[in-house]
């Protein structure tokens, strides 16, 4: 009986600890986008919209504003920064299909984003 009580206390402890760990999980920043009029993205232009595997596309953002910072995200595939306003996206074997590239432009007044789609085939 004493053992059963002990196990019950232990399981309760583990359960509560687990909940604390899950509750402490860091969440993504939820800073709202498109919150400012002082930044304007004119266009987001890829050199190629249709790629075969291992081909590359340069994607450039044209934006207006002061002290701009850029952040790039792709839902599938890899990119690397070429300079502050251009990235190189290359088509990997595991990213066949439509892939979305997103650019977030920000400064002290807020942030604005735009997306472009790139299609990858074998």
């Amino acid at each position, binding site marked *: 009986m004493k*053992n059963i009580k*002990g*196990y019950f*206390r*232990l399981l309760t*402890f*583990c359960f509560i*600890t*687990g909940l*604390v*760990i*899950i509750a*402490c*999980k*860091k969440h*993504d*920043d939820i800073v709202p986008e498109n919150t400012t009029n002082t930044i304007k993205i004119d266009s987001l232009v890829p050199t190629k919209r249709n790629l075969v*595997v*291992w081909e*590359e596309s340069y994607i450039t953002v044209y934006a207006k504003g002061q002290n701009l*910072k*850029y*952040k*790039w*995200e*792709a*839902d*599938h*595939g*890899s*990119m*690397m*920064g*070429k300079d*502050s306003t251009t*990235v*190189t996206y*290359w088509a*990997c*074997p*595991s990213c*066949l*299909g439509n892939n979305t590239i*997103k650019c977030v432009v920000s400064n002290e007044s807020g942030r604005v984003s735009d997306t472009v789609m790139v299609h990858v085939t*074998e």
Partner: protein
Amino acid sequence: MIGRLLNSLVFSMTLCLITTKVDAQCCSAGNPVGGDLLQSSIGKHSLRLTTQFKHSFSDQYYYQDHAEDIPQIKFSRFNYMNFQFIYGVSDKFNVFGELGYFFDKSQSVNIQGNHLFQASGIGDLTLNAKYVVFANRNKTKELNISGGVKLPVGAFDQEQEGVVLPLSLQPSNGSTKYTGSLYYFHRPFRSKLGFYWVSTIEVNSTIQSKNFFYKYGNVYINSLSGTYKLNDNISFVLQARAEIRAKDKREDNQIVSSTGSTVIFVAPMIQYRFLKNWETTLQADYPVYKYVQGSQLTNKYSYSISLARKISFRKKIEDKPISFK
């Protein structure tokens, strides 16, 4: 006794929580490299603490079962260190936890020149429980089952030079992973030779973060290991392991091409026990057969070294030397 047990668990969990906090302040999180090295159970009111370092290196692309030359990708590697604990709540019921840190998780590419993508950060937190279905008095036979979760603690969307790194380089798996395994050990009484068999299934939930919508395929692992006990201090293990990975899925339930594989590894291991309750283990993993769906970067080798210490909370009169298998 329960108080001491709770104290030890509180200590271990506190360590986990402290590390989680550091991770949240810093930037990134972990990946799936899970499970205790020794799948055997531990006795009642005993605690085994382990630290393990693992290095993995991949530089060869495969198309199905043969190598192919892809000059764009040079190599991929990681250096990972973890801390594990396993506690014997009773002779039949154990709890296990693991948390690690990727010092370096990187990929070198040759696209417009050489470029190194690099991430680092805390790995995912594993929590599981083990139940001994059967064990004989001499512990020469044991059958146990275990199940648990791997929680994607810490940051996940790491970036470099303003670009979010791809999923494969994020230190965290990014989703909760559920694992279950079955273990059977047998070594005839007073024999130096024995074997153990482990079957494991890993089921991933869907990653739904700001940047990614992705579901890794399930992983099925079967291994058969032969053990040879040279003397009371040194044991050798030779393991053959088959890892089958199902295909991944992306948004709208689309199957991801070039995912899914079958790989057979050979893993020699040497264990050295010293100072009564300490043990160090050196293990290498070498893939001897690879079949991948489509075209994929495959593992070339990995190795790990670990140090374990067993602590018994039983009364001194019950103290027995460590009995690793």
